[in-house]
């Protein structure tokens, strides 16, 4: 499939340009809007080019897991809304939606940006369960980076709701924010098409990708989560190069996490 598109694109790449005129390592314009849903305890909307995603944070009181009785927890959900792309269908989450949610989850969880112990309310009995839901509004490629950024900003925006007699009062938020460090993890996805590495693929470019690597990094320059996608194998040199590009580009996204 898409053999013609692929050879045409590779011809462009040989001249050093992409269909939309961007350089290989150039992102489209990123815009961020916060507090886009007053029903959520924290929310954000991120646009990268025409890709448009929303993330909303909700709090619930749950029971800590038996193996970590003094920790709260997070849960990331993602829905590829049929509203956002003619190729998405209504129904239970597709494998793509599950992968997206899990990759965003790992980027946040493994960076340890969130102090899970401070989410414990009463050891072994009560803790905060923080849910981040990602909704796609319009899809034009690179959902991984947009979703991870929206999720992180929504967490930063979130205010913990008031608790009365062990019940959450969603109508009243406290001034208290989540216990977040300054690690500000963000994800950069580097794609390989032929011998070319590009960032921030459009939906058209995603159709002909041989492989991709999503790299989540923290502010101090550590890698905290990765996900290889696509069927083509990556050589050690590929991985080196892709991680290098991700490390170079990540700060361009991180400036939006405030």
């Amino acid at each position: 499939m898409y053999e013609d598109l692929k050879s045409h694109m590779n011809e462009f790449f040989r001249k050093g340009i992409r269909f939309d005129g961007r350089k290989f390592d150039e992102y489209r314009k990123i815009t961020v809007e916060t507090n886009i849903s007053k029903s959520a305890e924290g929310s954000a909307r991120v646009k990268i080019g025409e890709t448009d995603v929303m993330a909303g944070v909700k709090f619930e009181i749950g029971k800590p897991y038996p193996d970590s009785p003094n920790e709260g927890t997070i849960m990331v959900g993602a829905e590829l809304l049929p509203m956002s792309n003619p190729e998405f269908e209504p129904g239970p989450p597709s494998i793509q939606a599950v992968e997206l949610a899990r990759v965003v989850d790992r980027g946040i969880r493994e960076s340890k940006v969130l102090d899970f112990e401070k989410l414990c309310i009463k050891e072994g009995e009560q803790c905060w369960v923080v849910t981040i839901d990602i909704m796609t509004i319009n899809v034009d490629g690179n959902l991984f980076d947009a979703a991870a950024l929206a999720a992180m900003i929504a967490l930063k925006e979130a205010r913990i709701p008031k608790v009365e007699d062990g019940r959450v009062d969603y109508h009243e938020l406290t001034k208290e924010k989540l216990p977040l460090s300054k690690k500000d993890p963000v994800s950069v996805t580097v794609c390989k098409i032929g011998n070319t590495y590009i960032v921030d693929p459009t939906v058209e470019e995603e159709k002909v990708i041989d492989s991709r690597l999503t790299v989540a990094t923290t502010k101090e320059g550590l890698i905290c989560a990765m996900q290889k996608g696509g069927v083509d194998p990556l050589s050690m040199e590929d991985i080196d190069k892709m991680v290098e590009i991700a490390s170079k580009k990540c700060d361009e996204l991180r400036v939006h996490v405030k």
Partner: protein
Amino acid sequence: MSRPDKRKVDETRPIEAKVGIIPRAVGSAMFKIGQTVAYAAVYGPRSLFPRFLKNPEKGILRCYYNMMPFSGCGERIRPGGSRRSKEISMVTENALASVVDLRDFPNTVVDVFIEMPQTDAGTRCAGICAASMALADAGISMKEMVAAVAVGLVNGKPVVDLSKEEEDLEGAVDVPVAVLPRSKKVVLLQLDGEIKPESLKEAIKMGIESSQKINEIQKATLKDKYKGE
């Protein structure tokens, strides 16, 4: 007794509307009334599967209403659709099917997806207002547009566009209505609460009048998109 937010009985909450907000869709719209926000996107006419659903005489309309997990006033809403969202999808579909003309597109489907990122009562009406604008934005033939608003009783008085606060008051009655603004016919009517037939009649009349005002906003928004710089 006056309304909690000091509105007049026939006054809706502030309304904002936009069309063409989702580039991938054939048509799309946002409709905001008070703190309730509805997005709608239209795809089609496109081929329909499974095949037995096809109608060789005209295209069919399908509507999907959904609240985002973080859009409720209380706890997170579990994704995956509820009995409530199924019912609302159906009554929305019926309301819009009454005006949409798909005779030129046999065997196809037009899908309408309605999503609520933020809610404060009146979501099905806001959804219908957005969907109707999105269908028009998609260039689908319609006999006329559909405008919708909830009417009802607050403190025993007929009012339009109940807020969540008003809906939760003791004795409140909630009557969502969707109206064809030109022919003044009702295409969606539901009721929760106890009301005298006379008050109901008055409330529905207020709904028809209010829908006409809402329709002016819908039309102005659509015209605005094509006005040029």
